């Protein structure tokens, strides 16, 4: 199956990716006046968001191939091209990244007071790299953005993070790096086999199963760490907890989606036979993440840590949906990625709002906030319910579609996954009860309610929660054609699978010469 291309007349995707970079370079030259820097970054981020809006309106939902394509030769010696494009799977992430960047600048307005210039440069560079990851159709370009993003993220967590930030940031960097370099080996292998880094051409490669098997696990190493899947999730609670609010929002909103996106874009389309063969182990890991992540949440005493572990559980749903290889489930998974970005991002922002006032994240330091900060409590309530997946919020649509699709392909996984929904309700409602009800904790008495700037940051999230919750059709409409094409590609891929023992034996033979 050839993937159709529709070339862009105006290099829109390039503009979206490079505008923040140019903004960052200008920031480097601006004087160290904090107000100026904040406003300038906000304008850049807003302009970038405005640039993504045409994607939303000009995107042809019935076209399964790549749109807004740009292709130029870049490093000719290695057949690398500057090749960008989006399809139904990636377009929403570009929009979400741009939106999250704007909101991150808004919520850091007062939270970040040190090295303001460096912070905004790092933020804009992260944003550019994120969008580059979602738009790249060249494997080398993709890897470049994927790794380049580590540098600003490392600095964001390490410089502006909490007390234990050094440990968290090194752990984050090394976990991700180990995963990524293993993927690099896989990329080199694919390149030597295909003679190109072009993702669409590699899709057509049809490698034998024993290759697909190893490459699947090499790419798995990178993506599973990013998602993060159990058991390589342990960097996430530390990184989330110690990161500044903006860092947590980016981590939860976009960064960990890159892993799931990688599974969809690469693991499924490059190694369809292996993906089908590895379905059960993947579903098993997903179910473990859902249930284990949920149970761990019950034991948390730190607001941010709880939400971080809930991410493990929610991302378990996403991988469950992806690897059930069923239309509804995959669409649900993509939607759930967006949802999780919105809801968890919003919850981190909410925690940031009170953290700025109290400088504590311990749940026991709160209580009775509903009477002290009623508007804030209302916002938090909506996001809590969305996180649980109450009908009418976006969380419900995503989880429902995932479970529906998974039920059709592997019943046991759906049943076990549904357990996660119940655990989710337990820990989120317990959190809400402890923080907002009960008696007013003297530590929080008299706190001012949310400010206009904070409301401005939270309202877009609220609107999206309810909009997707009540009327998901336009969002799902983006994906239909691309997801159908992808699954067709996966299910049509033919290849004989071999027992694992044989593959291991053969692999050992290749690795150890003679």
């Amino acid at each position, binding site marked *: 199956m050839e993937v159709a291309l529709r070339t862009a007349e105006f290099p829109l995707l390039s503009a979206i990716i490079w505008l923040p970079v140019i903004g960052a370079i200008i920031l480097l030259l601006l004087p160290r006046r904090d107000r100026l820097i904040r406003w300038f970054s906000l304008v850049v981020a807003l302009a970038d968001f405005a640039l993504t809006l045409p994607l939303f309106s000009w995107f042809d939902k019935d076209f399964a191939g790549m749109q807004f394509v740009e292709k130029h030769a*870049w*490093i*000719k*010696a*290695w057949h690398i091209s500057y090749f960008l494009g989006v399809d139904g799977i990636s377009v929403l992430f570009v929009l979400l990244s741009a939106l999250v960047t704007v909101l991150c600048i808004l919520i850091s307005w007062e939270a970040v007071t040190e*090295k303001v210039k*460096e912070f905004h440069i790092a933020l804009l560079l992260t944003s550019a790299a994120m969008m580059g990851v979602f738009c790249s159709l060249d494997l080398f370009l993709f*890897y*470049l953005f994927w*790794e*380049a993003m*580590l*540098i600003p993220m*490392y*600095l964001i967590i*390490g*410089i502006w993070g909490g007390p234990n*930030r*050094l440990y968290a*940031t*090194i752990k984050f*960097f*090394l976990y991700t*790096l*180990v995963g990524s*370099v*293993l993927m*690099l*080996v896989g990329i*080199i*292998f694919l*390149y*030597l086999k295909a003679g190109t880094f072009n993702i669409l051409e590699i899709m057509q490669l049809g490698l034998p199963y024993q290759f697909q098997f190893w490459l699947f696990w090499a790419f798995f190493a990178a993506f599973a760490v990013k998602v993060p899947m159990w058991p390589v999730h342990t960097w996430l609670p530390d990184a989330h907890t110690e990161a500044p609010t903006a860092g947590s929002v980016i981590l939860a909103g976009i960064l960990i989606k890159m892993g799931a996106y990688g599974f969809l874009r690469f693991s499924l389309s490059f190694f369809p036979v292996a993906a089908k063969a590895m379905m059960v182990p993947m579903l098993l890991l997903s179910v473990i993440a859902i249930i284990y992540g949920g149970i761990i949440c019950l034991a948390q005493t730190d607001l941010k840590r709880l939400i971080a572990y809930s991410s493990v559980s929610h991302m378990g749903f996403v991988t469950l949906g992806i690897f059930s290889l069923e239309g509804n489930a995959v669409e649900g998974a993509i939607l759930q990625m967006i949802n999780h970005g919105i809801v968890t991002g919003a919850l981190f922002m909410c925690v940031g709002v009170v953290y700025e006032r109290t400088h504590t994240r311990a749940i026991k330091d709160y209580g009775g906030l509903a009477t002290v900060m009623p508007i804030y409590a209302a916002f938090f309530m909506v996001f809590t319910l969305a996180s649980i997946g109450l009908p009418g919020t976006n969380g419900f649509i995503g989880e429902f579609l995932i479970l529906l699709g998974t039920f059709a392909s592997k019943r046991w996984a759906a049943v076990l996954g549904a357990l996660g929904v119940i655990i989710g309700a337990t820990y989120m409602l317990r959190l809400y009860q402890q923080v907002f009800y009960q008696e007013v904790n003297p530590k929080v008495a008299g706190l001012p309610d949310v400010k206009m700037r904070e409301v401005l940051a939270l309202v877009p999230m609220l609107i999206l929660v309810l909009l997707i919750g009540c009327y998901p059709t336009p969002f799902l409409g983006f994906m239909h054609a691309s997801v159908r094409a992808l699954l067709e590609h996966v299910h049509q891929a033919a290849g004989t699978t071999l027992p694992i023992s044989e593959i291991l034996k053969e692999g050992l033979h*290749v*690795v*150890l*010469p003679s």
Partner: protein
Amino acid sequence: MWSSLPSFVAVYPETLLVVVASVMALVDRWITRKAVFTWATIVTALLALALVFLTQGTTFGHAYAADQYGVFFKTIFLLVLFLVALLAPGYNQLLGINFGEFYALLMYAVTGMMLMASTRDLILLYLGLELMSLSVYVLVGLLYAELRSLEGAMKYFLLGSFASAFLLLAMAFLYGLTGTTNIEAIAKALLAANLSANKALFLSAALFVVAFAFKVALVPFHMWSPDAYEGAPTSVTAFMSVGPKAAGFAAMGRVFLIALAAAKTEWTQLLVPLAVLTMFTGAVLAVVQTNIKRLLAYSSITHAGYAVLGIIAGTKEGMAATMLYLFLYAFMNIGAFSVIVLMRRRNFLGENIFDYQGLSKTHPTVALLLLIFLFSLTGIPPTAGFIGKFFVFRAAFEAGHTALVILAVLASAIAAYPYLRIVMLMYMKPPEKEVEISLNPYIFAGLMFAVTGVLLFGVYPGPVIDFARACCTGFLP
């Protein structure tokens, strides 16, 4: 009568360097403005570079050839000379070693390296190696009033002499087998005689491996390097961390890929364990270092381990990868050393990594530059370090060394930690003491040049890749 003399065109660049160096060493006494030497070195380096590109042909009875392979390595050496001449003046003046002999010795060393890169005869290779080594021994001991400088020079000299002896022995065996010292003739003789199972050939290959492993500091023949790096004046450390190493690889290419092509399996099976050991030992030992010069010494051991992957690959692509790696390594490593040089004050070494604590607060630009160099050494895109790593990994993978590449990427993940630690200190800790930097126009220019190289070749390496490949085309079939 003149026509009977050989044509010396092929050695014009080397002649220029030797002449200028000798003049500088002689006139030092009468010249008080030492900046003259800096400028003379810079201009000579650029002139020699131009000559390198202009001259072609062989001389001395085909023992010496100004071929494409040599051109690439000479570009690296002269680039190193240029960058070191820019970083040295301020630092050397501070330590009282900013005299003509310093620059003269640098140029002699570079001449030796150029001989090693262009030689087609083992004897000439040995001469080049000795010229380089002797000059660098003296440079390391230039601060003879300091014990660690002397110690470093002594260790380097003693172990280096052993390495030279091994090299001579290896050559002797090869001469005994083939009756010639000409590299191409050796290759032909070995192939024709079908000596693949010969014990003497294996011994010769093993001795060559040991000798070159000393010169490029592969574990376990690296013992001299941390001490020599730490003891040497930083301007010399910057030079020897790239220059002699690149020269060692140039000679390895000539000897292993051409002369000993018939014994490829033998030297490959010796180099593979050395490479693995080097990458991991360098990476792990760098983790515990607190002196930044020692840290970069271990880091440069690790990098030699990556660079040797291209030789192990044994292909044209592999050699091109090693060459590109060394070229890019020159920019990032000398860049990093330039920052270390900046930190030196009269009574302040600025070598402890904790001296860098909070540097981003006190000197944000310097910190940013070091950050870029360190991430490039780590191999994170979009810096040159990533391109270099990618190319060697790719070449080794292509040649079938899958396990080696997997180990190499894992080692590179471990090696990331020491660099991250410095970044962490610079950016994530508050400054503890007042740190002054000694900026001068030379080193500023050098830093800008290096950082431009690191970022430019990180995103647009196409031309240098083509150049490296073109330089290998005539070299290997």
